[in-house]
């Protein structure tokens, strides 16, 4: 399977402000220290090799949207955050090259930041497209229709030309979707959210966002260890520090980098992708959080095999 991150930010899309770009350029110029480059390619290579990611790149600001490539023919996408717009444009390009026009969406939940990309999803206007929305919620269709109502958006849902199907699944059930085994788990979040496990050919990917792990519910913790068990990649909500998640931001429905590492350790997962980044974080803040998480994993690893900790960004691709 191949996982593509189209949107990785939590709660609200963010964009780089001029001063943030200026700071990156300034740091790059200082690092270049008077070097001359014969071409932009040569300069790009220097940047890649010598600058940190927060300087030569950016984590991006689109909200949750992750593609899991690996079905027989169809597209498989987790959530419809603002990253969906870019996915839709790329999917149209791939469809022009012969890709099947079937889209299976797997919804964590229907909060605004996870559906706001749908009104801008170009394939919804393709009369030859089939869009299947999988969810643990009974009200997924209502949420998408309500978002298109005139008070919020000028194009009503019924003007969309694709063929739609809404499928509700029960947690724990294993369903096969175009050759991929999919399992849901219910998560602690306002109005509930659902995590997904995608498995094929002995490989597995977990998508678990907007999930709070409560201090006083260790039975739930054990259930997540089981759900994450031996996963090759766990995409996990790491929006807050553990300290914030148990104090000021308790019951806000999100998890921490610390709990994510401990769950992955207990589950013997192989790779953790930090996800659903706090919208107030700068690129430097996210890079610092990533470095701290890598360090925490080292500090508590003990005799376990190393857990690789990566930090999701808009545009990242991970082969599983």
């Amino acid at each position: 399977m191949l996982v593509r991150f189209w949107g990785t930010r939590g709660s609200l899309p963010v964009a780089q402000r001029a001063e943030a770009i200026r700071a990156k350029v300034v740091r790059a110029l200082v690092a270049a220290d008077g070097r001359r480059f014969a071409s932009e390619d040569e300069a790009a290579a220097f940047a890649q090799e010598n600058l940190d990611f927060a300087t030569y790149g950016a984590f991006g600001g689109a909200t949750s949207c992750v593609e899991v490539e690996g079905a027989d023919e169809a597209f498989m996408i987790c959530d419809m955050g603002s990253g969906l717009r870019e996915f839709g444009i790329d999917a149209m390009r791939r469809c022009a090259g012969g890709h099947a026009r079937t889209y299976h969406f797997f919804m964590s939940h229907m909060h605004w930041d996870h559906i706001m990309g749908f009104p801008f999803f170009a394939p919804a206007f393709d009369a030859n497209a089939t869009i299947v929305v999988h969810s643990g919620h009974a009200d997924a269709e209502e949420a998408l229709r309500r978002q298109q109502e005139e008070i919020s958006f000028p194009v009503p849902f019924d003007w969309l030309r694709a063929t739609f199907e809404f499928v509700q699944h029960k947690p724990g059930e294993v369903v096969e979707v175009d050759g991929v085994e999919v399992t849901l788990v219910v998560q602690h979040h306002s109005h509930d959210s659902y995590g997904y496990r995608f498995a094929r050919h002995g490989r597995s990917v977990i998508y678990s966002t907007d999930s709070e792990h409560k201090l006083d519910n260790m039975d739930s913790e054990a259930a997540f260890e089981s759900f994450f068990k031996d996963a090759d990649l766990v995409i996990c909500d790491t929006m807050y520090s553990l300290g914030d998640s148990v104090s000021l931001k308790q019951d806000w429905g999100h998890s921490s980098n610390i709990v994510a590492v401990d769950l992955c350790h207990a589950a013997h997962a192989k790779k953790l992708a930090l996800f659903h980044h706090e919208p107030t974080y700068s690129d430097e803040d996210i890079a610092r959080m990533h470095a701290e998480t890598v360090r925490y994993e080292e500090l508590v690893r003990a005799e376990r095999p190393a857990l690789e900790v990566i930090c999701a960004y808009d545009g990242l691709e991970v082969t599983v």
Partner: protein
Amino acid sequence: MDWQVRKDGGRLIGQPRGRVDETTWEKFSNDLIAAVREAAAAGLPLTVDLTGLDYMSSRGLRALTMAKREAGDAVAITLAGPNERMREILAISRYDKLFEIVDDVGL
């Protein structure tokens, strides 16, 4: 993980030894909560002596949170003498913002 508790200098001191992880956190949590209740009954603050602790994972940190909630305003909890590894864990988790941390137990 071993746990000992004693009264010293107008406070209750709880001392865990070893590591707090998924196999030992429940004992640590129970011992810590019992110490908070003992401190509350005696009208004493509680110092958690971390000098003998190798490290704690999030399970241990969450036990600290449960203890803080149990303590409320009745018992002030201080973490004392964390080793370098524990100090890093407390900083990464931002628990250094939730608890008073002192360099040594100050006997």
